[in-house]
């Protein structure tokens, strides 16, 4: 019985860590936006608006919860949960350091992408249940986009798995310790997989943006076309959940990217967990920066890009990795 309690406790701690990071993300994103725009951003709630995310959450909680009269009530309520649940499920398997992980799963990476495929179902249902044309169009767009980009997303990771021969995130990170190139005892280039799998990483990063509807691929939420896409009819905390899910997924995918390509918690001097979070946050800041810089692509351009460029590239990457494996090993 103690085992069970311990397990639940570990899960809760992982959840807490994840959600705290999401809340920080909300604040950081607004501040970074403001900085890029040469303005101040939130300043009123707390010093430098530090309590703004909490105020936002409270506002969302206290707002009137509107369900459109013609909406499918059950599905309308269920959809945000379906969208949000996968990211919580993923928190459980992400190792923060070699021995800090809620649930050690030796097919961790496979599990993460498996669970992520549930998100489009929630999105599609959210769009359908709202009984709004903007929502329906947004939902269809979103689901189509996520499905078509999940394939390159999965395949881009395959190169790393082929090199390590393992789907266990801890093993993958463990193999990235040390340095690739070193002069004497001082490592110049760390032994990160980004240097072995540069193409894989680029594709991973692009598909990450597309999979989570970040600019320039924020087509389902393109406000100038579809208002807010599948989120249009949502209000109050249900809207909060949908938003939370997106931020949370970006966080998760940034963490996965760090684990796969940037050596996870490996790094000198500082404790491993600090290194891990530094890297994750750099990833998030890059995503934020891109969001503020680029315009949006068109939906057909997105599909062409995904199917005609990214997919062949990932396949080529896998083939290349396989040949090199055979040749060198």
């Amino acid at each position: 019985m103690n085992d069970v309690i311990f397990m639940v406790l570990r899960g809760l701690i992982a959840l807490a860590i994840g959600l705290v990071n999401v809340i920080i993300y909300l604040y950081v994103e607004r501040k970074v936006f403001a900085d890029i725009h040469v303005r101040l951003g939130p300043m009123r709630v707390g010093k430098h608006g530090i309590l703004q995310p909490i105020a936002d959450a409270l506002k969302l909680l206290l707002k009137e919860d509107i369900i459109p009269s013609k909406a499918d009530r059950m599905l309308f309520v269920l959809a945000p949960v379906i969208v949000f649940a996968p990211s919580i499920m993923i928190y459980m398997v992400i190792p923060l350091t070699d021995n800090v992980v809620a649930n050690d799963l030796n097919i961790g990476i496979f599990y993460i992408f498996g669970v992520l495929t549930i998100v489009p179902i929630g999105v599609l249902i959210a769009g359908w249940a709202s009984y709004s044309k903007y929502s329906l169009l947004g939902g269809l767009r979103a689901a189509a986009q996520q499905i078509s980009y999940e394939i390159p997303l999965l395949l881009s990771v395959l190169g790393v798995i082929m090199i390590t021969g393992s789907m266990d995130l801890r093993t993958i990170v463990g193999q990235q310790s040390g340095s690739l190139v070193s002069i004497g005892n001082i490592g110049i280039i760390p032994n990160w997989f980004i240097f072995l799998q540069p193409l894989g990483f680029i594709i991973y990063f692009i598909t990450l943006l597309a999979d989570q509807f970040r600019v320039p691929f924020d087509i389902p939420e393109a406000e100038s076309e579809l208002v807010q896409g599948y989120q249009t009819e949502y209000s109050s905390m249900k809207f909060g959940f949908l938003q939370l899910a997106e931020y949370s997924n970006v966080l998760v995918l940034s963490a996965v990217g760090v684990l796969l390509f940037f050596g996870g918690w490996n790094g000198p001097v500082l404790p491993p967990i600090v290194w891990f979070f530094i890297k994750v946050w750099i990833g998030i800041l890059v995503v934020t920066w891109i969001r503020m810089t680029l315009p949006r692509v068109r939906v057909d351009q997105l599909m062409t890009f995904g199917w005609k460029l990214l997919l062949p590239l990932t396949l080529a990457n896998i083939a290349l990795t396989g040949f090199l494996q055979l040749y060198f090993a």
Partner: protein
Amino acid sequence: MQNILFYIIAVIMLVACWRVATTKNLIHTVLAAFIVLMSTAAIFFMLNAEFLGVVQILIYAGAITIMVLFVVMLTTAGPRYEVTHDKKIKPSMYLSTIVVFATLVFLVSNIQWPMGTTVLQLEDVTETLATKIFLEYLLPFEIASILLLVALVGAVVLARKE
């Protein structure tokens, strides 16, 4: 503990199955099917077959459900389309259900299931599966994939005709 969890999942699964058969709203049906598939995955996880569980989620719960949802949304007349059961079909429907169910019960209770004695290690499951598919059964695997490819191309050709 394991047993309690199993019964909970089993009940959810059965209720969802029942909903699949009885719900009139197509989207609700798909969602119920989704729950069934997810509970199947959960049972796989409980049996330590985590790889299979994830495959179940990835392919059945994820991809196939989405495909069905797409088809339903794009083809039915209006978002509030409901299925109406034809009265004539109903008896045959019940009959076939009973027959299939009876056959299954009969088979399950009469076959001598080989009881495994060794518990596979998690690492082994994936690895064994991989070796089996890519070494032992490589030819059937490739043939199956070519078959699927042909089906895919055929579907595209048919859809393009208009």
